[in-house]
């Protein structure tokens, strides 16, 4: 394989960005649901 560094960098950055965003999103949703649950907001 040629240009291994560039391939690793490209796929690595994409994986980190996409996974990072997804995980953070899921965690924020969990946190928000936990905050909401005791107050019983859902209409």
């Amino acid at each position, binding site marked *: 394989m*040629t240009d291994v560094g560039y391939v690793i960098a*490209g796929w690595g950055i994409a994986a980190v960005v996409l996974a990072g965003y997804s995980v953070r999103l899921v965690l924020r949703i969990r946190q928000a649901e936990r905050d909401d649950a005791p107050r019983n907001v859902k209409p």
Partner: protein
Amino acid sequence: MERDELLAPIVRRIVGVLTIVSLVALVLFGLWGAPTDEVQGDAQRVMYLHVPSAWLAYLAFFITASASALFLWRRTRADVWDRVAGASAELGVMFTGLALVLGSIWGRPVWGFWWAWDARLVSTALLFFLFLGYCALRRIPSSDPVGAAKRNAIAALIAFVDVPIVHFSVEWWRTLHQKATVFNPQLNPEIHGVMALTLWIGTIAFTLLYVYLLDRRYRLAVLEHGRADVELAHAIAERTGVKAGVT
């Protein structure tokens, strides 16, 4: 129309599973299945991520603009569109940023430089900043939720109207004064069958991922809004309670 969830749970689950399957397929095809490009070498494998990212960037901003228009039109006005617009813009900025970085990483070994003043590159970079500003605007809180949503929708449309102008002006700029050097035909040989297939897999995988993340981002917006509502109800109760205590 008021929705707690964008997608029905069963649809979301299916989209989620398909996203994972297609992403795994993309990794397998992109890193092993597709043959090494004769001219560009293995650096071309970055393209399997770059092209889908760029496609998603345009799709996401198109959806932001459409949702904003639907919000502004009285007959279809609903919080759904405001939230979809915001969620899609955030994802669009992420995919645009990714497309720029990946394009740069691909360009270094293939072109020999990190950045080129190529029409598509420049207009994508401008697009990134256009909607980065929009996202910054959205984050500023307001006392008038409907007014703020209207403001955001107008801002999205003003920015979107600029996209074709940016595109054509940059295109003219780079073609009127010098011949395109970057996309010379030698670098774009006929695409191998498996390569084309891999690009398709990448596009489908990223689109599914976009749909899934859009649904999740929408859910977060609904939850945050719900929390704001609860806080407001508490504040009103507290305020009237104070009054009751005085009189």
